[in-house]
């Protein structure tokens, strides 16, 4: 399927038609950004590891209900192949659904609904064996057939048609994630074989896909119009149709969940969870201090800063994790003036005083990003020689740009409409101005921001993405297979700046490579890493990508996000139970520990309330 989809959609990149639809999913990437869609820097009080939170004491006691505030509403619902889930949506999905594989504390992918996921020698074929005895909330069993249907639905190959003759499931981004998949076959009732076009050593990471690839029951998959609000999974909690948009959504305990804790008690512990979308910082802080909410998930530095004093006073607990972060940055359009010229990108990178910015905008809470891959993620390099604040150099490069092009360096920065994004955009404008550039702010709503990115109708934009899961999951955003309109024999090192044919822009066939760069080093490194399971080879490849980014300044890296779980002091087990093993579905004490990044929420099955 992959090639087909890619060629069809990829070639129509600028023609909205179908391709544009694919990246709808981006909505979520910046949807809940609120506080952080523009670069901020950091360095003073960094939080690289996991800290804070309630100590997990003794044997958990089942029962009770909690209210969890989430940064946004997921108005589009949870028809997972099509959904546009931001972190809030993923958190709800993680209550209702399970995944074939999940990351452990070392960011390795461990079978979950599957018990074995094994590749062939050259990683061109993967065999997924499903764990037996698991049932969906509607009582139907989990088997190879339903897993195949799910994977087909995500890949855009689901056979069922709607009454209009169109395919019933219309996935967006996932068709690109799975464009390396050739065929999915059921080899026995509990085994699915996935054949690849090219080698793919880190395929299991994409079976998790930041927590978006939940396995749905056949009934939901076949539900044409109501798939988005008829959620049926195998997860620890069931959805019983209590969802009032912009107010609350509740899930209740799945009494027949397939996992037990290390004491033999059936998970989950809680009877009910009420999710409440809370967009305003003050509402969030007040709600936690007045015990209206039991816990939340937040990267809002203003809220974190205000809550910290309550935590220090012992009134609240707060688990913080700077591990496996996302990166917030300025997305350049590398295919259009002025940022098609590296002098303009360098001028920008040298102009922004990220240290000061972090103090002003982030209360000094965040860590300056050295590249896209944060601490803990493969490919992380502490010093990538990224150009950083230097007003003299910034002015020099701005002048160089003017000399080279005859144009003054001016650009428009697209920012979201929330107060914090606007403040941040104004700050960036000030730095740009100081370096002799002129910057306009275009205040747009979220849909326009994404539309602009997809259609390439922007110059620079506030952005946040690329959570620190397996770096192979970034392939979809940055890899270009074919350089459309480029001379294949070109030796120009300034990739993306056009070529002998004089074509600028549109030289990457990947419609979700929003920066529109086509970098041979990056392409090659992604391919090398996919072909090998050797950790050293992969590490080297991703470090190459990281350094290449710093060298070409395709984007203006800002800072790494800090995710936190502020909670009442009686809320325990926030990071979730240990993972399942190949032989036991339960959370054995010697099993792998759960992932410690919070950018896609937490496993809610381990939450319990201390009486």
């Amino acid at each position, binding site marked *: 399927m992959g090639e087909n989809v890619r060629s069809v959609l990829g070639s129509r990149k600028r023609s909205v038609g179908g391709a544009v639809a694919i990246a709808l999913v981006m909505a979520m990437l910046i949807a809940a950004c609120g506080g952080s869609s523009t670069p901020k820097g950091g360095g003073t009080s960094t939080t690289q590891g996991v800290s804070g939170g309630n100590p997990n004491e003794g044997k958990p006691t089942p029962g009770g209900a909690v209210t969890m505030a989430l940064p946004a509403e997921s108005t589009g619902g949870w028809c997972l192949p099509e959904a546009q889930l931001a972190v809030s949506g993923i958190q709800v999905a993680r209550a209702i659904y399970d995944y074939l594989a999940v990351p452990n504390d070392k960011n390795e992918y461990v079978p979950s609904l599957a018990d074995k996921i094994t590749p062939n020698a050259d990683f061109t074929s993967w065999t997924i064996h499903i764990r037996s005895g698991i049932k969906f909330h509607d009582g139907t069993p989990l088997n190879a057939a339903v897993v195949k249907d799910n994977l087909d639905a995500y890949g855009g190959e689901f056979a069922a048609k709607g009454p209009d003759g169109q395919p019933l499931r219309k996935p967006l981004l996932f068709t690109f994630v799975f464009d390396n998949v050739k065929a999915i076959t059921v080899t026995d009732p509990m085994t699915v074989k996935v054949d690849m076009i090219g080698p793919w050593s880190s395929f299991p990471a994409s079976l998790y896909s930041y927590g978006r690839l939940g396995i749905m029951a056949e009934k939901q998959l076949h539900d044409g119009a109501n798939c988005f609000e008829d959620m049926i999974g195998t997860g620890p909690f069931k959805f019983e149709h209590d969802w009032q948009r912009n107010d609350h959504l509740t899930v209740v305990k799945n009494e027949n969940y397939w996992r037990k804790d290390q004491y033999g008690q059936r998970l989950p512990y809680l009877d009910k969870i009420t999710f409440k979308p809370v967009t305003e910082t*003050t509402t969030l802080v007040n709600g936690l201090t007045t015990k209206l909410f039991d816990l939340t998930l937040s990267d809002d530095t203003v809220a974190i800063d205000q809550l910290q004093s309550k935590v220090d006073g012992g009134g609240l607990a707060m688990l913080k994790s700077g591990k496996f972060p996302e990166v917030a940055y300025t997305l350049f359009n590398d295919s259009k003036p002025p940022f098609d010229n590296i002098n303009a990108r360098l001028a920008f990178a040298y102009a922004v005083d990220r240290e000061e910015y972090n103090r002003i905008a982030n209360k000094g809470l965040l860590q300056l990003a050295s590249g896209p891959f944060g601490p803990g993620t493969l490919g992380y390099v502490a010093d990538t020689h990224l150009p950083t604040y230097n007003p003299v150099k910034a002015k020099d490069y701005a002048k160089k740009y003017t000399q080279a092009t005859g144009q003054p360096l001016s650009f428009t920065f697209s920012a979201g409409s929330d107060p*914090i994004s606007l403040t941040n955009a104004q700050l960036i404008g000030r730095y740009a101005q100081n370096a002799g550039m002129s910057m306009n*702010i275009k205040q747009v*709503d979220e849909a*326009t921001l994404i539309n602009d990115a997809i259609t390439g109708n922007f110059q620079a934009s506030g952005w946040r993405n690329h959570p620190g899961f397996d770096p192979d999951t970034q392939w979809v955003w940055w890899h270009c297979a074919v350089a459309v309109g480029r001379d294949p024999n070109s030796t120009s090192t300034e990739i993306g700046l056009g070529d002998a044919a004089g074509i600028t822009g549109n030289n990457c066939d990947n419609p979700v490579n929003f920066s529109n760069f086509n970098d041979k080093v990056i392409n090659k490194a992604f391919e090398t890493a996919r072909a090998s399971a050797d950790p050293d080879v992969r590490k080297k490849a991703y470090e190459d990508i990281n350094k290449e980014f710093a060298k070409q300044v395709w984007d203006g890296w800002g800072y790494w996000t800090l995710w936190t779980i502020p909670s009442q002091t009686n809320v325990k087990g926030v990071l979730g139970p240990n993972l399942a093993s190949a032989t036991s579905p339960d959370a054995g004490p010697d099993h792998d520990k759960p992932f410690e990044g919070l950018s896609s929420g937490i496993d809610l099955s381990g939450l319990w309330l201390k009486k």
Partner: protein
Amino acid sequence: MLEHSPSTVAAPVDAPPPATEPPPPDTEFVRARSQRVGLGGILGIIWLGFVAICAIVIPMVVKNPTNPGLLAARGMFKVSGHPLGGDSAGNDMLLQLAKGARSSLIVAIGAVAVGLVLGGTLGLIAGYYRGRIDTLLTSTFNILLAIPQFVLAVALVSVLANDSISKQGIPVPVTTGRRLAVLVIALGIVSTPILARITRANTLQWAQREFVLAARAQGATNRRVMIREVLPNVLPAMFSIALLGIAVAMVAEGGLSILGVGVHLPGVSWGSLIAQGRNSLQSQPSVVFEPIVCLFLTVLSLNYLGDVVRARFDVRESVL
């Protein structure tokens, strides 16, 4: 639109005139003091003049410091040379307030000007000619007034100022200038029926006076009579309502800003400053309170002067 003195609110569409007409309440406070402008009026004029001068002069004189860190989140009187401190992006608040005054004044005065021209003309015609044309125009005003005015404004602005997306999916952004124009037009449309009603009611009274009838008897054209004889007498009423209308339009722009459809960056208005600043209410309340104080004093001055004008010319709002 938002809160304002009851006299400026048009009567409910279907509400009959109350049998016992309440005496005009609004002028009481002013009239109790003086028939002249009075101290309050002088203070009001001084404040409005001050705002107007600041709005023109300050953006030409004051510049933001090059280093955003200097003023970011600094309160009043913390940094010398920047008495009002800075906002969270390090902009000088004095400069922001002056820019805000520009937009707020442009929107409010522009909207009322539109309302005066449209509503004044229509009201004059309706009141002068009476009969069918009066019925038609009055019904039109009533229908426009049947939608709560702020809701009408929100609806018009959010539709007209929407970034249009072409069939090719290319967004066509709305510029700050166009957004201002949309605000002026939308709020102008909203204020039209109110001003038209006032004008009509006053015209009805004046058009029957002896001198008007005399002028008509002498063969003056209707247009000439309307403009020369009736209009000058109706103007004080229009003017007093216009002053209140400016205040109301300014407040309405603030409400629109809270909903995210007021003035957008790079432009700022007092309303958008309040809307944007409320996130730092806990850490730096002055950023929100400064524009609130400006807005309050301006509305207060306009309301007071509007009442003074009304008291002076004995405009009876019960004719509504």
